[in-house]
């Protein structure tokens, strides 16, 4: 089963972080992703540009409406993702919980619907 783990964080916390801490967090995240790749569980992972670059697209009554910003207004913004391939939700939750970002923000774990397109 494939799961998309969406990493939510408060960007201002990240920006306010001392340089050394930010580098350490980034190194730790990359090391974790490397380990997951070796285990064959990580398909793809990437940090995202800050939320100011997000656009949400909706189509209503045949009209396309693109709005600035993420899909929901919360304190935390979508900061990155991991696309993983594991046995079941419990394993997915275990993988997500060990990602360093889980300590700073939230990770939304979404099962991937097979055989669809986005």
């Amino acid at each position, binding site marked *: *089963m494939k799961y998309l783990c969406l990493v939510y964080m408060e960007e201002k916390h990240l920006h306010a972080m001392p340089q050394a801490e930010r580098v350490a967090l980034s190194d730790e995240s990359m090391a974790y992703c490397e380990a997951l790749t070796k285990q064959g569980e990580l398909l793809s992972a990437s940090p995202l540009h800050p939320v100011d670059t997000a656009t949400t697209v909706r189509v209503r009554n045949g009209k396309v409406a693109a709005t600035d910003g993420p899909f929901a207004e919360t304190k935390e913004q979508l900061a990155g993702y991991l696309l993983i391939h594991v*046995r*079941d*939700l*419990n394993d997915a*939750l275990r993988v997500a919980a060990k990602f360093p970002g889980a300590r700073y923000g939230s990770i939304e*774990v979404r*099962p991937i*619907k097979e055989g669809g397109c986005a």
Partner: protein
Amino acid sequence: MSEESSTSLRAVVEELYRTQSRQVLATLIRLLGDFDAAEEALHEAFTVAVEQWEREGIPANPRAWLVSTGRFKAIDGMRHRARFDASLEELARQLETASVSLDAESFDGPSVEDDRLRLIFTCCHPALTPEAQIAMTMREVCGLTTEEIARAFLTKPATIAQRIVRAKSKIRDARIPYEVPPQSELPARLDAVLRVVYLVFNEGYSASSGNAVTRQDLSGEAIRLARVLVQLLPDPETIGLLALLLLQDSRRDARVSESGDVILLEDQDRTRWNREFVAEGAALVQQAFSMGEVGPYAIQSAIASIHAQAADAAATDWRRIVELYDLLLQAESSPVVELNRAVAVAMLDGPAAGLTLIDGLLARGELKTYHLVHAARADLCRRLGQTEEARRAYEQALSLTRQGPERRFLERRLLGLTGQGS
């Protein structure tokens, strides 16, 4: 078969359904990997049992027979539907080959007990909302109907049905596994299970609104569920929870007057407490504490046990109760526990000491809208002769509760103040 034996067969099947259907269901969910398919298979198996056992007699191991018949019927049904949906043929073949190694042992060995635990842990999975966990547990583990659950929780059957449908889709689509969590995750996951059992009990013990203070059926279900858990996972917290439920339930008849009014612990007729439950609860408390480190449920059960064994409020070992509240605060700090501790301190060191603690809680902004804080405060003020302050606190408490019997109790206390004069 004679009419008489046919009646007795029906009684046997009904008894089997009552005592075994949840275990059969739990195993069928494992074998079929799907809640709805398993439920359908369960009912088919019992239907076939009534017909076939009349001709051929009751099998030596009825539970194994029911599981194997249910599984066969489910695979057969899938084959039948495969004529319209080819993917089902593949699924049917998978199910059949996956289970070829199954013998009577798999239908009736220790793994069957594991199936009940798997079912409980799946229904109480943290990926489901708390409401869904409760509905799923009542429906799948306890076997209550949607209507019964709705009545118990004072809601519409459609609401409960929708919660169950959503939970089942989430279990299927997000692939929540049908498993007992590994040892490393067991404490946290067991907490969730115990919380569901405790919530069900409380829902039955004190309805959050309406006139019935007790809804015995739900509390009875919770106690039954706790017994199953103790049997399957004899952990100090599981034992502590069962003890707590029994000890609280032992006061059921004494805590409400004939007119449905609340009677406080100190004013209860202790001869009306259920002595059997008190004795069983006290023994379980001992057992939990003898096992080493205790958690919140075991500590709460120890407090309940001290109350249950005291001849009256004055003879209660308040010093030990305050100690246990200290222990409880270490295990699980919460303002409600602090409130209870303050009331115990008032019994040990006098109302002024308790009042200081409660005022401290309120000053921190905690529990401001919790009616029991104001009721407890009012009671301590009353004991200290601060009638005006007591009146204000009772009125505050009244403005915060909707429950009929609680309101009548507070109104009586207010009236009592007027009698005292100010």
